[in-house]
């Protein structure tokens, strides 16, 4: 049981600013909450009916009412003001890094997977060396990542809780998202918008690498990209061929049931 009101540690550059704003609002609303509820409870006990008590006949107090109109107004305008700053930094179109981002990515959501297109070592798309990873988002730490987010079918929502990133992926729209990781590690990517029966399991893993490690990973994957679906046959990879062709069905590696078709029994009888 976790009753805490703290947010998980942020791992993106703007995460801290969002959290600071959150704690300010938590403080302000928490204070108002405690005071008003305390007053309410106090009234409940203080003014409960007793023999001989008669209510004070009053229709209100204009000055008091003006006070408690103006003060909340100032508070909410202040909160809005502070929010605007952070909001514009995170979302506003002119702040979203354009192509010069350190790492441009394309993310296409579909029921129920996140397909991440990497630009390959040259950092550019449409040059023939890009490749797609399913449900795996690899990024370098300390580098600005810009994602062009879209969806192939229904509305999904790209949610990186630890990075304080959330953006709906809408079919027919390409929406830019940016963030910069501040710590290496593995983090979840979840879908936050109801997208069908597999919504609850539309998840992916975000891996934040050290920069050199990321470069290595990118190089390896680019080399292997030839075997990605939809491209030309792979360069010979003996290890794979072996595992792939253990028996007549090429499924020796599939431990559980051996040859599936023969498992059916009667086909060839």
């Amino acid at each position, binding site marked *: 049981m976790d009753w805490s009101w703290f947010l998980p540690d942020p791992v993106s550059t703007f995460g801290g600013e969002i959290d600071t704003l959150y704690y300010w609002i938590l403080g302000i609303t928490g204070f108002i909450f405690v005071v008003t509820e305390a007053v309410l409870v106090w009234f409940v006990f203080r003014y409960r009916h007793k023999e001989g008590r008669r209510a004070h006949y009053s229709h209100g107090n204009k000055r008091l009412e003006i006070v408690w109109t103006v003060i*909340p107004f100032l508070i909410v305008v202040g909160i809005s003001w502070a929010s605007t700053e952070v909001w514009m930094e995170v979302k506003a179109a002119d702040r979203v890094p354009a192509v010069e981002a350190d790492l441009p990515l394309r993310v296409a959501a579909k029921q129920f997977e996140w397909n991440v297109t990497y630009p390959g070592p040259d950092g550019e798309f449409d040059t023939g060396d890009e490749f797609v990873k399913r449900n795996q988002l690899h990024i370098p730490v300390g580098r600005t990542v810009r994602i062009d987010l879209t969806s192939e079918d229904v509305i999904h929502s790209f949610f990186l809780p630890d990075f304080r990133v959330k953006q709906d992926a809408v079919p027919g729209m390409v929406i830019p998202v940016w963030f910069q990781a501040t710590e290496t590690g593995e983090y979840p990517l979840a879908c936050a918008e109801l997208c069908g029966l597999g919504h609850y399991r539309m998840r992916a893993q975000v891996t934040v690498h050290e920069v050199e490690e990321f470069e290595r990973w990118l190089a390896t994957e680019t080399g292997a990209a030839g075997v990605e679906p939809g491209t030309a046959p792979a360069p010979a990879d003996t290890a794979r061929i072996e595992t792939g062709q253990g028996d007549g069905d090429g499924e020796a590696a599939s431990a559980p049931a051996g040859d599936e078709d023969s498992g059916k029994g009667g086909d060839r009888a």
Partner: protein
Amino acid sequence: MTTTATTAERVPNVSVQHWAEPGHEDDRSFWRKYVFSTDHKVIGSQFLFLSLFFLFVGGALAMMMRWQLGFPGEPMPGGGVFGQAKAVQGILLPEFYNSLVTMHGTFMIFFAIMPLLVGVFGNWLIPLHVGAADMAFPRLNMASFWTAVPAGVLMLASFWVTGGAAGAGWTAYPPLSAVPEFSGVSMGQKLWCVSIAVLGFSSLMGAVNYITTIVNMRAPGLGWMRLSLPVWALFITAILILLAIPVLTGAAILLLFDQTIGTAFFLPEAGGQPLLWQHLFWYFGHPEVYILILPAMGIASEVIANGSRKPIFGYRFMVAAIVTIAFLGWIVWGHHMFQSGMNPLLGTSFMFSTMVIAVPSAIKTFNWLGTMWRGDLHFHVPMLNAVAFVAMFIIGGLSGIFMASTPIDIYIHDTYFIVAHLHYVLFGGSLFAIFAGIYFWFPKFFGKMLNPTLGKIHFWTSFVFFNLVFFPMHNIGLKGHMRRIYDPTQYEWLAEIQPMNTFMSVSAFLLGTAQLLFLANIVWSLWKGEDAPPNPWKANTLEWSIPSPAPHGNFEEMPTVYRGPYEYSAPEREEDHWPMGEPGPGEERPPPEEQRRKEAAG
């Protein structure tokens, strides 16, 4: 000059305003009296039973969701009764869970809370509070109810069609809601659209009626600033309904076209725009939020003034707050769409308007506290529920500040924090006010008091378990727990907080069970309850000056209003209440309006 004549002059277009003659026998047939009745009180009661039915249906769906969330992957007791399209070996399927989510929201909002507030209290209270014999258009009123019934049946029936009930959320975002291949639901989603469109007509017929009645049929002496706050709230609500519902109806019909005849209003591949639906839906949807809370605020104001034996604190501010909320309610819909891909600059402006709407809400809260201040608080069951309304509304209002702030909303949007917020407003707020209202006015319409002991047990169990269910949702939401997910344990970081879910589920079952007490109380009290006196709460509004249950035709003669509805504990009176229709010392019945007008003209 007779009263009847006065009436006819005052509302020349309304032909139904006839006063029952004293001692007149009610000779209507059973059907005209209880089924196809045009009596606003009967229609209100019909709405009560209809919407309580759907309240319990919606509650049952919530119980099933909580089972799945608390005990994911385990067979639900009794789950075997569902076909294997819904549950296999008692284990609820994700697609059925989506239907549960969708239909829980749909039933609760459209078929329970909204008709409870607007259908029940609008009908019960408006004619009585304005001193009229009935609504302006009694037949339209009847049609309103009998249009709501097929809409409800249609919605309920969708559980039994192939593919099951709608599963795209109560907000029905396309393309998921528009393309059967995406949701696996075809007929259910269409029925959803049809039902919502049909229900829209029901609401419109009600709204037209309420507005006309309040504007035209107020008793002599009942100026706008003497209207009771529930009537003020219902008046403003009716205007919201009149302007908002057609947008939803239109949108639902467009969505139906996308589903059936191949249009693509909301489908991008043929040039449509999914965000258009969101704009249309929330352009209705946010005023809808205020449709669901304003009448509750009115009821709470009425009950708190009565329970505190004090005039409402700052009546004019209260009215102004209702009007302001309703006005601002039109320009905040975009706060549901901060993360939708809408232009971020729009997000900023919607944030400001949303924040500002907190101000009138704050005024109302402080004025309720002001009303209780130095009062003489009688904690009868309605008062308990009304005070709980205030306490819970404070929480729901304050949590709204978080998501109004756009950057915070990035993180908490579509998480359980939102679920907590909306339930604090709709359950902690609206539903507790509805309980208060039902306990308060039940005697006037059924002639029986609801049992106070059962009522108190119901209140305390509901209050405690409500908080145990919904307060922890804030905490798990802040951990990033997404809403509308079938099995949280699929995520490591959510699996860690799974005990919270189990705890909330157990609390939810107890909360659900507690509601059976309410049902039992109604049934038992109708059967064997204590007979209600005409004015059990020593209240001021006009309905308490006539017998309980209120007779057909309401008032024997047209009442005259001498003062506002909240004149409690006036020093010049020994009694601590002062009915609106009772002349004070030296006050004469005012002359008929016609005569006054002539005098004024000189």
